[in-house]
């Protein structure tokens, strides 16, 4: 399948990268002001995340983030970024991404999500469903036994999972001898990432199994020294499809959407007793007692 990327896509990709960056920057500010749940900043990974999402079909393909990647998954709908903002603000509803959004909730343990993605891809293959699963992980996870085991399992099962690892030049993957293809791509170029993910997706969909994509950016220890937004902006300007007015407009839109999302998150209902919902389908006696004791102390519904 040849993925056609037209000018409207290029503009949309840059706008999404701008939104991802703006949200990340604002969340870092908010967490400093309020000392509330910091999430990792997106830190130069906008091209990897937005590019990868552009090569997928949101109606069929799943994305498994660790956490901050949800900043750049606007292609999967505005709910993904909104809910991440709510999570960053410490609200439990941040993880409650409604169906049919095919994105898993953020989770706190770097690298744990790779095994989840492998299992989900495995289930799609067993059920002969057409989608693939893409999972992100970043270089601090790459020595993790969890991640290496999960990649090994993907390889053995030939699961239709695309694993995208962001690294910088000083900390490349120490690749083990996978049989699955390992592809290296420029992590600051969203179009290069789209191409690599599109090929990997074709492989997965035709039953040829998993791919490991290493998206490398110049830099040290996970901090890219090249700004992918600045680079891509220049490219679009050179093509005559971007200008300063569009840049300002995109930045303003990003700020406005962040403020709206933050307000939405701040107004989400919150009750102490929400903690007891969805521990199990039916609460245990112990949980019923604990909830009753809390209600007695604070008043039911508080």
């Amino acid at each position, binding site marked *: 399948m040849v993925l056609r990327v037209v000018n409207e896509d290029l503009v949309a990709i840059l706008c999404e990268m701008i939104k991802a960056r703006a949200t990340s920057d604002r969340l870092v500010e908010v967490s400093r002001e309020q000392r509330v749940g910091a999430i990792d900043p997106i830190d130069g990974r906008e091209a990897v995340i937005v590019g990868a999402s552009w090569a997928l079909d949101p109606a069929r393909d799943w994305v498994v983030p660790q956490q901050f990647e949800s900043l750049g998954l606007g292609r999967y709908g505005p709910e993904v970024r909104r809910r991440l903002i709510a999570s960053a603000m410490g609200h439990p509803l941040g993880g409650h991404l409604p169906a049919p959004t095919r994105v898993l909730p953020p989770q706190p*343990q770097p690298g744990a999500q790779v095994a*989840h993605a492998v299992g989900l891809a495995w289930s799609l293959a067993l059920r002969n469903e057409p989608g693939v699963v893409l999972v992100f992980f970043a270089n601090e996870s790459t020595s993790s036994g969890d991640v290496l085991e999960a990649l090994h399992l993907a390889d053995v099962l030939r699961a239709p999972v695309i694993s995208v690892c962001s690294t910088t030049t000083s900390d490349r993957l120490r690749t083990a001898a996978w049989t699955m293809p390992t592809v290296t791509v420029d992590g600051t170029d969203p179009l290069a990432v789209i191409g690599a993910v599109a090929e990997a997706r074709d492989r997965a969909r035709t039953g040829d199994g998993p791919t490991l994509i290493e998206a490398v950016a110049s830099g040290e220890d996970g901090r890219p020294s090249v700004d992918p937004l600045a680079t891509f902006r220049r490219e679009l300007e050179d093509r005559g499809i971007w200008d300063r007015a569009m840049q300002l407009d995109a930045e303003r839109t990003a700020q406005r959407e962040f403020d709206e999302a933050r307000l939405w998150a701040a107004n989400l209902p919150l009750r102490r007793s929400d903690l007891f919902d969805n521990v199990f389908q039916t609460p245990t006696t112990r949980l019923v007692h604990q909830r009753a004791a809390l209600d007695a102390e604070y008043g039911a519904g508080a």
Partner: protein
Amino acid sequence: MSELRPDEEVVSLLAAINQTLHAEMSRDADVLVLGERADEGSYGATAGLLAAFGDRRVFSLPAVPSAMVGATVGLAIGGMVPVAEVSPFGGVHRAMQQLGGQIAAFRHRSGGRFPMGITLRVPYGGPAGALRSFPGAFEGQLTNLAGLKVVAPATATDAKGLLTEAIRDPDPVIFLESIRAYRAISGPVPSGEHRVPFGQARWAVAGNDVTIIAWSYQVEVASRVARKLATQGLSVGVLDLRSLVPLDIGGIVDAVERTGRVLVVEESVATSGFGAEVIATINEEAFYSLEAPPVRVAALDTPGPTHLLEDVYLPDGRIEAAVRRLLEARV
């Protein structure tokens, strides 16, 4: 032993597990069996399944316990019903983050969108002589992970009933299998469908002077002590919890009210074992029905012993003396 009903046959606890896996896999095409040697399973629990159901239902995986347990999250999200056997060679501990931080929390984290209909079979305890190499019982470490159910059959019929229930439960269930019990325990098992609800203890032995509370293989051990003491005129009841989470709090309260004297027997190390949870619950819910302080008999707080010191380490040989002391104690 009482007469067998026409729909029952006597099988070992291990065979009851095997039969249940066959029955559930026949009933529901989404049930999958995973494990390191799934063609056989530890001690043969999954024998015959690969031949019966094929390699898109039964999977022998490399020794990647953390990835296997983590993959069950994805399988459950995708609508499958995984039944995974975790290696008794430290597999649970290698998978603890996926177990406690992921499986246990996923329904909660996702607001109910992604329930984890997962069963993890956990053989533990090792055959005689293995406690230096295998972890022994450690159910307290698992019950402490909020969001997991933990059950422990003591009989062959409960192995079938609890495992059937576990596989059909939309929530994640740890199914504890005492390796000592696999072939040492046999009993009548219904040949048709058989379910045992969680959160319901049962009386293994009726008695009015002292109550022993136990689960898994220690129910058999405690029952032998109770039957021996009965010949000496002492009436010792044995309550089989069957289900640790959810816990039959009402059943425990009734047991305390019946005798006022309670001994908890467990195969795990005493400190922070599940016995401590049972006694804390008794204190919270039935303190004023006690005639004597509740006590526990457990494995010693030492690393697993070599074979020659196992009898000293395990609680089995200390139960009878503890019962006698409890009968003489006063509040």
